[in-house]
C-alpha cells in the first residue's frame, strides 16, 4: 500500500524551520571555530533571526494552517513570532561583550532553540503542540540560566528554575491528559464543541493548564522562582527571559483561553481577575523593598504580568490587541533596562546594587537618559510607549466592563512609580561614589540601547502605526 504524503504548505512552518537550521548550524560550527573566530556565532544567529523574520512576513493576513491547526499561520502567530525574534535579536546584541570574551559553547544555539519553542507555542491550537513548544523553550532556558558555571548564584538560578519548571510542567501535562481523557481530543477546535465541557474532570484539567501557563508568565502565587532565577542568571539571559518566555506564555494563554475556550469564559475569568490583582499588587509592593536592581526588575516583571492579565480578563478584540501591544512594548523597555545594567555590570564586579548607580546619570548622561526613558516607560508616564500600552489595556478593561480592575491597575502603576523613579533619583540626584562605576559597553550593547530607547519614545509619541497592526491580530485569527 503506497504511502501518500499529504501536501504540506511549508510556508506556515518556514520560520521554525529556518530557526532550527540556524540553531543546529551554530551548534555544529562552534567546536570548529578557533577562539578569535567565535564572533561569527552571534552574527550567524542574528542572520538566522532576520531570515526567519523574512519568512514570517508573507504569512500576514494569509490565514494558512496545517494539520488541522497544529501549526497556524494566522496574524496572531505572526505578530508573536516577530516579538520573539525581536527579543532574540536584542538578546544577541546585548550578549556581545566588549572585553572580547564570547559566550562559548552552545549559548547562541540554545537561545535560538528557546526561540523556536516560543514560536511553536504561539502558533498552534493543539494543546500537545503547545506543550512541546513550551518544553523546547524551557529546557533551553534552564541551561542558559546556569550558563555562568563558575557562579554559584547562576547555578542556584538554574536549579531552582528547573525544579519549579518541572513541577509546574507536571501540572500542565496532567491537565492536558485530563482533558484528553474527557473529550478524546487535544485540539482546541474539536474539544470546544464537545458535550463534556462541564464535567469536573474537564474543569480540573482546565484549571491545571491554567496553573501551568500562569507559572510561565509568573503570576502570583506561582511567581516565587522569578526573583531568584532573574538575579542569578546571566543578565542577557534575564532580559531574554523577561521578554520572550513571558510573551510566549501569554501567547499560549491567549490562544487557549481567550480564543479557544471563549465559551467557557465564566469559568476562568474570575480566577484570572483575582490572579491579575494579586500579581500586580504583590509584584509592585515587593519591588519597593528590593535593593538589587535585577531583583527589582524581576518583581517589576511580575507586576507587568498582572497588567497584561487585565487585558486577558477584558477580552474581546480590544483585550487581545492591547495585550499584544503591551507585550511588544514591554519587551523593548525591559530589554533596554537590562542593557543598561549590562553596560554598567561588565568586568567582574556586577554593580547590580542600587547604590552603585549613584550619580551615574550626571557622569554618563546618555546612559542616564536611556535608563530614565525605560524607567519612565515602565511606570507608565507619557510620552513613552509604556504609557500608551497601559492606556490601551486600561481602556480595553473599562470598555469591557472591568472598571474595578482598571482602577486597581492605575493604583498599582502609582505604587510602581516609587521604585522606578527611585532609580532615576539615585542616578541623577545623588553624589557619585569614588571610584564610581565605569561603563564598558560594546557597540552592540549601545546599538541595542539606542534601538530600545528610540522605540520606547517613538512608540510613545506615534503609537498609531503599531496599534493598527496589533488591532489586525484579531482579524484572521484561527481557532
Amino acid at each position, binding site marked *: 500500500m503506497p504511502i501518500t504524503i499529504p501536501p504540506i504548505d511549508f510556508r506556515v512552518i518556514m520560520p521554525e524551520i529556518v530557526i532550527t537550521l540556524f540553531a543546529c548550524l551554530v551548534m555544529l560550527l562552534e567546536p570548529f571555530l578557533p577562539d578569535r573566530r567565535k564572533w561569527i556565532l552571534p552574527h550567524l544567529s542574528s542572520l538566522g533571526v532576520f531570515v526567519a523574520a523574512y519568512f514570517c512576513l508573507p504569512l500576514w493576513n494569509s490565514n494558512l494552517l496545517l494539520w488541522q491547526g497544529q501549526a497556524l499561520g494566522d496574524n496572531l502567530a505572526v505578530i508573536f513570532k516577530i516579538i520573539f525574534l525581536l527579543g532574540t535579536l536584542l538578546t544577541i546584541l546585548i550578549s556581545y561583550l566588549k572585553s572580547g570574551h564570547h559566550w562559548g559553547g552552545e549559548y547562541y544555539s540554545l537561545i535560538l532553540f528557546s526561540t523556536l519553542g516560543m514560536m511553536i507555542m504561539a502558533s498552534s491550537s493543539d494543546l500537545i503542540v503547545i506543550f512541546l513548544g513550551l518544553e523546547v523553550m524551557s529546557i533551553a532556558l534552564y541551561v542558559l540560566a546556569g550558563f555562568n558555571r563558575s557562579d554559584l548564584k547562576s547555578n542556584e538560578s538554574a536549579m531552582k528554575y528547573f525544579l519549579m519548571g518541572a513541577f509546574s510542567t507536571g501540572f500542565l501535562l496532567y491537565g492536558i491528559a485530563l482533558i484528553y481523557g474527557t473529550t478524546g481530543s487535544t485540539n482546541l477546535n474539536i474539544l470546544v464543541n464537545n458535550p463534556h465541557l462541564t464535567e469536573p474532570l474537564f474543569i480540573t484539567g482546565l484549571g491545571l493548564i*491554567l496553573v501551568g501557563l500562569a507559572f510561565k508568565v509568573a503570576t502570583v502565587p506561582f511567581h516565587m522562582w522569578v526573583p531568584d532565577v532573574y538575579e542569578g542568571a546571566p543578565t542577557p539571559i534575564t532580559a531574554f527571559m523577561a521578554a520572550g518566555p513571558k510573551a510566549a506564555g501569554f501567547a499560549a494563554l491567549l490562544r487557549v483561553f481567550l480564543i479557544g475556550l471563549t465559551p467557557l469564559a465564566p469559568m476562568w475569568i474570575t480566577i484570572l481577575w483575582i490572579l491579575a490583582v494579586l500579581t500586580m499588587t504583590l509584584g509592585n509592593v515587593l519591588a519597593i523593598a528590593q535593593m538589587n536592581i535585577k531583583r527589582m526588575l524581576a518583581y517589576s516583571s511580575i507586576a507587568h504580568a498582572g497588567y497584561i492579565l487585565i487585558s486577558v480578563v477584558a477580552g474581546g478584540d480590544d483585550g487581545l490587541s492591547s495585550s499584544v501591544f503591551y507585550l511588544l512594548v514591554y519587551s523593548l523597555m525591559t530589554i533596554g533596562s537590562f542593557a543598561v545594567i549590562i553596560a554598567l555590570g561588565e568586568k567582574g564586579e556586577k554593580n547590580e546594587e542600587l547604590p552603585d548607580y549613584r550619580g551615574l546619570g550626571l557622569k554618563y548622561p546618555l546612559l542616564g537618559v536611556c535608563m530614565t526613558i525605560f524607567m519612565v516607560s515602565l511606570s507608565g508616564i507619557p510620552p513613552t510607549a509604556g504609557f500608551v500600552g497601559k492606556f490601551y489595556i486600561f481602556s480595553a478593561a473599562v470598555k469591557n466592563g472591568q472598571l474595578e480592575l482598571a482602577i486597581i491597575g492605575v493604583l498599582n502603576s502609582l505604587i510602581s512609580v516609587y521604585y522606578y523613579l527611585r532609580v532615576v533619583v539615585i542616578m541623577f540626584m545623588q553624589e557619585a561614589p569614588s571610584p564610581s562605576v565605569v561603563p564598558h559597553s560594546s557597540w552592540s550593547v549601545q546599538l541595542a540601547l539606542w534601538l530600545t530607547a528610540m522605540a520606547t519614545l517613538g512608540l510613545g509619541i506615534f503609537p498609531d502605526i503599531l496599534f493598527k497592526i496589533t488591532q489586525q491580530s484579531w482579524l484572521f485569527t484561527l481557532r
Partner: protein
Amino acid sequence: MFDYIILIPLFSLIGFLLNGFLGKRLGKSFVSWVGPGSVGLSFTLALKLFLDLLALPADQRVIESITFPWIISGDLQVNIAFLLDPLSAVMMLIVCGVGFLIHVYSIGYMHDDPGYARYFSYLNLFEFSMLVLVLANNFLLMFLGWEGVGLCSYLLIGFWFEKKSAADAGKKAFIVNRIGDFGFLLGMILIFITFGSLNYLEVFETAPVLLDVGSGLAVAITLLLFTGAVGKSAQIPLYVWLPDAMEGPTPVSALIHAATMVTAGVYMVARCHVLYLLAPFSLSVVAVIGAITAFYSASIGLVQNDIKRVLAYSTISQLGYMFLACGVGAFAAGIFHLMTHAFFKALLFLGAGAVIHALAGEQDLRKMGGLKNHLPVTFVTFLIATLAISGVPLFSGFFSKDEILWKSFSQGNPFLWLIGIITAGLTAFYMFRLFFLTFYGQPRFDSHRTHPHEAPKSMTIPLIILALLSALGGYIGLPESLAGKNVFEKFLAPVFEAGTHLESAVHTYSHSTEYSLMLMSIAVAFIGIITAFRFYLKNPVAAEKIKTKFATTYRLLLNKYYMDELYDRIFVKPFLNLALYFWQFIDVQIVDGLANGSADFVAWCSKVFRKVQTGYIRNYALSLALGVVIILTYILTR
C-alpha cells in the same frame, strides 16, 4: 497697503529679538540703532497708513486685516488680525510717535547703564505688545498685548532689580495688575459665552440686538472689563502700584507709566463703548470712579516731595479725568485728553528725567531749586508742559480738559463737574509748586559737588518736539464754541456714532453756559498757579505755616491716606497668613502626611511580604501547590 499693518508691531518684535539676543555682543551703537530705529520704522509706516486712512471717505474708515488663524477650537475662532479705524489709528500714532521720541531720549539717558541692551530689548518688546494691544481686532489678541505690556512694565520697573525697592515695586505692579486682569479675563469669557465670538466688530454688531439697555449681562460684562481697566490704568482701588512704579528708569515712567500703557484701560473702555452704553449703571461707575480718583490722587500730589511721585499721582489724577469723560459718554473727549496728556505728561517725565540726570540721580524736590539758568531747554519745555497740564488757555491741556469738564456738566452731573473743576485747581497748584521748587529760588543742592548741566542733544530734541506738541496739539480739537471745528471729534465720530443713538436725551445748553464754565475753569487754574506762586516763591514761610496749622491733614496726605498700610493690613498680611496656613498645616501636615503615610504603609507591607520569599525551593513548591488547590477548589465548587 493696509495688509502691512502687521509690520507695525513686527518691526518692534524684530528689534526686541535682535537686541535681546545679539545686543550684548554687538555693542552699544548697534543697540542704539536697532532700538529706536525699529520704532522709527513703525512710526513711518503708521503715518503712511494714517494718511491712507484719511484719504478714505469717513464711513469707510474701518479696515480689518486678517493675517492668519491663531486658535481654532470648536466654536472659538481667533485670528491674528488687526483693526485699523480712527480710534486705533490715533492710539497707534501716539504709541509709535511718543514711543519713538522716548526711545531716542533713552539713548542719552541710559547711556552709561550696564544693562543698555537689556533695556532696549524690553522697551522694544513693550512697543510690540502695546501696538498689538491697540491694533488687535479681537479681545484675545488685545489680551495678549495687555499681558505683554504688563510683563514689560514689570521687567522695566524692576530694571534695577538689585535694588530691593525696585524689585518689590515690580512685584507690586504685577500682582495688583493680576487682580484687574482676572476681571478682564472673566469679562472676555462672558463675552464669548454671550456672543460666541471675540471679534470686536461681530460683538459690537450683535450686542444691541442681543442685550437690552441696562440688562444684567451687559452690566456684568462691562464691570468685569472695567476691573481690568482699573488695574491697568491705576484707578481706585487698584492705583497703589503706579506711584511705586517710579522705581523704574525715568524714560520708562514717561512711556509706560504716563503716556501709553496706563491709558490702555481708557482705550479699552472707549473701544467697548457699545457695550458700556448698554449698561448705564456701569457708565456711572466709570464716571464716579474716575472723578473720585482724579480728586483723590491730586490731593496726595499736593504734598509729595519726590519729583517723580508728584508726576505719578498727577498721572493717576489725569487718568481719572479720562474715565470721567468715558463715564459721561464723551468717549472722544476722553481719547482727546489721552492724546494731549501723552504729550505733556511724557514731556514732564522726560524733563524731570533731565533734571534728575543733571543732579546725578537726585529726585527730592527739597534738594533742587534754581535750575532755571543751568538747564535752559529743560526749563522752557517743562514750563510749556506745566502750563498745558494746568489748563492755561491756548495750551493743549486746556482744550482737552475743558472739553471733559463741559461734557460732564452737559451730559452728566453738575456734581461730577464740580469735582473736576476743583481737581483742575489742585492740578495747577501742585504742578506749579513742583515747577517753582525745581527751577526757581535758591539752589538747595550741594553746589560744590554737583554741577548741573544741560542734557545731551538726544535728550533735548525729544523735549522740544514734545513741547511743540503740548503747546499746539490741542488745536485739532478746538471746540465749535471757540470758532473751531473740533476736527478730532469729527475724525473719531464714525467709531463712536455706532452707540450714539443709545444715548439718553442730551440737555442742550447755550454757548453762553459753555463760555461761563470755561471762564470758571480758567479762573480756577490761575487761582492754583497764584497760590503756588505765593507759597513757594514769594513767601515760603506761609507754606510752612499752613503745614503746621493743618498738621493732621498734611500728614494724612503725605502718607497717601495711609492706603498702603491699610492694604497691607487688610489684604497682604491676612493673605500671607492664609498662605502660611495652607503651606504649613494643610500641605505639610495633611497632604504630605497622607502621601508619606501611604508610602510608608506600602513600604511596610513590602518588608513584611518579602519574608515569604525564603529562598527555599520547598516553600516555593508549597506556594505553587497551594495555588493549585485553591484554584481547583474554586473552579469545582463554583
